[in-house]
């Protein structure tokens, strides 16, 4: 439980700047969970731009194979006259995925929103371990430096795919990027893992130990439940990835042979070590990376639940089933990793068991979708920018969820495995799903972060453009996958089967260029509103959540009163009160 603080600096602080610590301690090596959250947010936004640029390279090559790329090409591939060389194409797909997953989605959900929201939403004055929290951010920096610098070493950045399958990733002669870039990639990955680990321990402790009086587990908002489950997933799955990463590092630099079979060769060079098994890496990698898929979606689901309930002005439909279904996803998430390996050469009988568990994990997602529909049923929907993004999450998640069933069905997966069908699937979940939820969350909690509102009209322009364009980019990928169009191919058009797909790819690429370009609307709105947006009061959305009872932005120590919780966070339209909302801290009316 948090202590009541009577420090004048804390209690009087309507702004974050009232306390006297120096600039460096306040904004750089800060122990305050809100500043650390914002540090994560700004870092991930910068990497979001980098990852988006890499995606443009991919789309350019698929639309105009081997033509020099204007503007970016000069910088990315000057020796080739701006043309994307085939090894650079594999680098683009590898680094686009690695950056988007490890530097954008995971840190923006757990790092930025987890840090910012957990203490505010449970009524704590900070995290349980502030120093650990600060370290979790600063462990990202060496990772940034390792992966960022890998673009400039001999051979270029990693080219083994974000899944880094050996022997391609281990044998230095197998690919230019396996020369040096891969080592830096592995070091970066390990450090990201340490960062997430520090964060997850902190989140679990904070949520269990530091809830305000009256804040029982079943009065926690879905955002906190999802962050809690995510933290558990990270704590149990990450050690496996870290160990596997160190084993691959050992294979690369120490001459061990965990993943190299005897007699493997590459580039006419025999390999000294051997006796390992390439499939071992896939098992270890996916044992982490499948739960990681849920690490990348559960917090988004939580935040979307909160936003939808708030702007439907109606209690969340089926709160407890929602909690049970994310817990179910977390549990089942540990026994479905094999569905990434149906055609890998893994024992085919195992494929059947993984098919059954994978089908079953679709169930909690279905339950959640029905509950979201139940939440907007009979509500009074306010179409604010955050609500539009949250609703689009539901619409898009239906597509991403249903397309997963195709890949879970093993015989069908034989054909569509490693085709654009899977690319469509995970972009619908991660971009159209998670990234849209993150946009919604930024528009929603921006007033709490900076004390100012973002512009709603420009927010809607940003929403409409993103929503239409991303569907134009990602939806056709389903039919490309039906045709068998393989992913990660620099130039597929010389195959007879794929020779008629160029026009469709060009259309998708034009939409992708526009999609990336129009994100400028968001960035301008974000930075302009930070300084010039209209002031937001404590509770601009008339939300029930505890965080909205704190000042905007909250000062050091968060609350200027001791929060006491009387009810769950979704009591909209309660008959007990006049207003259509009923904050968690408002005492119930005295019965006469």
């Amino acid at each position, binding site marked *: 439980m948090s202590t009541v603080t009577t420090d004048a600096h804390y209690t009087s602080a309507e702004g974050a700047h009232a306390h006297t610590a120096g600039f460096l301690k306040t904004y750089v090596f800060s122990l305050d969970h809100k500043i650390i959250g914002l540090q994560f947010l700004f870092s991930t936004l910068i990497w979001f731009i980098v990852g988006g640029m890499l995606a443009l390279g991919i789309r350019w090559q698929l639309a105009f194979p081997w033509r020099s790329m204007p503007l970016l090409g000069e910088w990315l591939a000057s020796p080739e006259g701006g043309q994307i060389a*085939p090894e650079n194409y*594999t680098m683009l*797909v590898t680094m686009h995925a690695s950056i988007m997953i490890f530097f954008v989605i995971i840190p923006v959900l757990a790092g930025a929103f987890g840090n910012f929201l957990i203490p505010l939403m449970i009524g704590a004055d900070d995290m349980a371990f502030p120093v650990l929290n600060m370290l979790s951010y600063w462990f990202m920096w060496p990772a940034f430096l390792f992966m960022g610098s890998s673009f400039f070493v001999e051979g270029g950045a990693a*080219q*083994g795919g974000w899944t880094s*399958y*050996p*022997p*391609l990733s281990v044998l230095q002669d*197998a690919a230019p990027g396996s020369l040096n870039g891969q080592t830096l990639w592995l070091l970066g990955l390990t450090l990201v893992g340490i960062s997430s680990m520090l964060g997850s321990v902190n989140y679990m402790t904070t949520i269990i130990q530091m809830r305000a009086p009256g804040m029982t587990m079943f009065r926690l908002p879905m955002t906190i439940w999802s962050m809690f489950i995510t933290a558990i997933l990270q704590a149990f799955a990450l050690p496996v990835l870290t160990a596997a990463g160190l084993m691959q590092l050992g294979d690369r630099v120490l001459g061990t042979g965990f993943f190299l079979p005897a007699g*493997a*060769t*590459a580039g006419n060079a025999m390999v000294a070590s051997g006796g390992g098994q*390439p499939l071992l890496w896939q098992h270890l990698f996916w044992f982490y990376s499948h739960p990681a898929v849920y690490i990348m979606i559960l917090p988004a689901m939580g935040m979307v639940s909160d936003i939808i309930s708030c702007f*439907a002005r*109606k*209690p969340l*439909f089926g709160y*407890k089933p929602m909690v049970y279904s994310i817990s179910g996803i977390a549990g089942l998430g540990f026994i479905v990793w094999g569905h990434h390996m149906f*055609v890998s*050469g893994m024992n*085919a*009988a195992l494929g*059947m068991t993984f*098919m059954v568990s994978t089908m*079953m994990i679709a*169930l909690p997602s*279905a*339950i959640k979708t029905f*509950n979201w*529909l*139940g939440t*907007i*049923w*009979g*509500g*009074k*929907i306010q*179409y604010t920018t955050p609500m539009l993004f949250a609703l689009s999450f539901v*619409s898009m998640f*239906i*597509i991403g969820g*249903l*397309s997963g069933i195709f890949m*879970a069905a*093993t*015989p*069908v997966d*034989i054909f569509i495995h*490693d*085709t654009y069908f899977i690319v469509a699937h995970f972009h619908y979940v991660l971009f159209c799903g998670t990234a849209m939820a993150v946009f919604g969350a930024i528009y929603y909690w921006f007033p709490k972060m900076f004390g100012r509102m973002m512009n709603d009209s420009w927010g809607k322009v940003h929403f409409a453009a993103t929503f239409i364009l991303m569907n134009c980019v990602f*939806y056709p990928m389903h039919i*490309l996958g039906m*045709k*068998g169009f*393989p992913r990660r191919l620099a130039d597929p058009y*010389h195959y007879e089967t794929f020779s008629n797909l160029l026009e*469709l790819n060009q259309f998708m690429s034009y939409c992708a260029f526009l999609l990336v370009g129009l994100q400028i609307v968001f960035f301008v709105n974000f930075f302009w509103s930070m300084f010039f947006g209209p002031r937001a009061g404590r509770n601009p959305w008339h939300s029930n959540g505890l965080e909205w009872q704190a000042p905007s932005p909250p000062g050091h120590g968060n609350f200027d009163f001791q929060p006491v919780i009387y009810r769950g966070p979704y009591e*909209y*339209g309660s008959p007990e009160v006049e207003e259509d909302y009923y904050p968690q801290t408002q005492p119930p009316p005295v019965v006469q």
Partner: protein
Amino acid sequence: MNRFWSLLFLLVPIGGVATFVVAPYYNIWLPRDVSEQGHKIDSLFMFILWLTGIVFIGTQLVFVYFSWKYEAGTNKQPVKYSHGSHSLEVVWTILPAVTLLFIAIYQMDAWAEAKMRTPGLLPIVEVTGRQFNWDFRYPGPDGELYTRDDIVRTDGNLYLPVDEQVLLRITSADVLHSFFLPNMRLKQDVVPGMDQSMWFKAKQEGQFDIVCAELCGWGHYKMKGRVHFVTRADFDAQLETFRQEQNKVLADPPVVR
């Protein structure tokens, strides 16, 4: 104006269905199937496509309808102060659970057929993936691989008899590759140090793509081959031609300076 957003959301089911309706006319659909077992995979695909398609249309239309009907400015009713419904939760847990289990069980036979019930045949060819080529080793007249009369071809052209169940042994010499025959609906990753099998029966003569479907390095995109399905007589004749070519080279090896 606010109802405009419901119309925007309505574009999703409309565009989503339209894409799949129009795609076959542009030949962006499942490629031509020339195998005996491929139609099973195709029909399972279509089964899931119809099932998910109906769920997709249903949920999207409900979503659009709710977003239209319950817009704050138009819905004059008070908010339904409801925290959920136990019976609804039970219904929408059990229905999808049964459906999903059914899909899983329904697929098992086709999976076993494709990957588990290895026919008791000798391999007609050994396929080796290497950066960035598919090599083929035929067993030659004695029918056994790795004997003196093996025929090795490295030009990426695989010849196989049509209308005959064949068993392929596939492996890799260096990194992971994936032996993908889109027109046979078959795919198998190849792993160095492991032997895998693939079996099928081609129904039509002709030549079709062999694609590498697992990232294998810079030349991944050009790791292309062709599979030629020919009659048994043509197949035997073709192998005999290869054997004579090979013997000629062996008898009179080119001088390497």
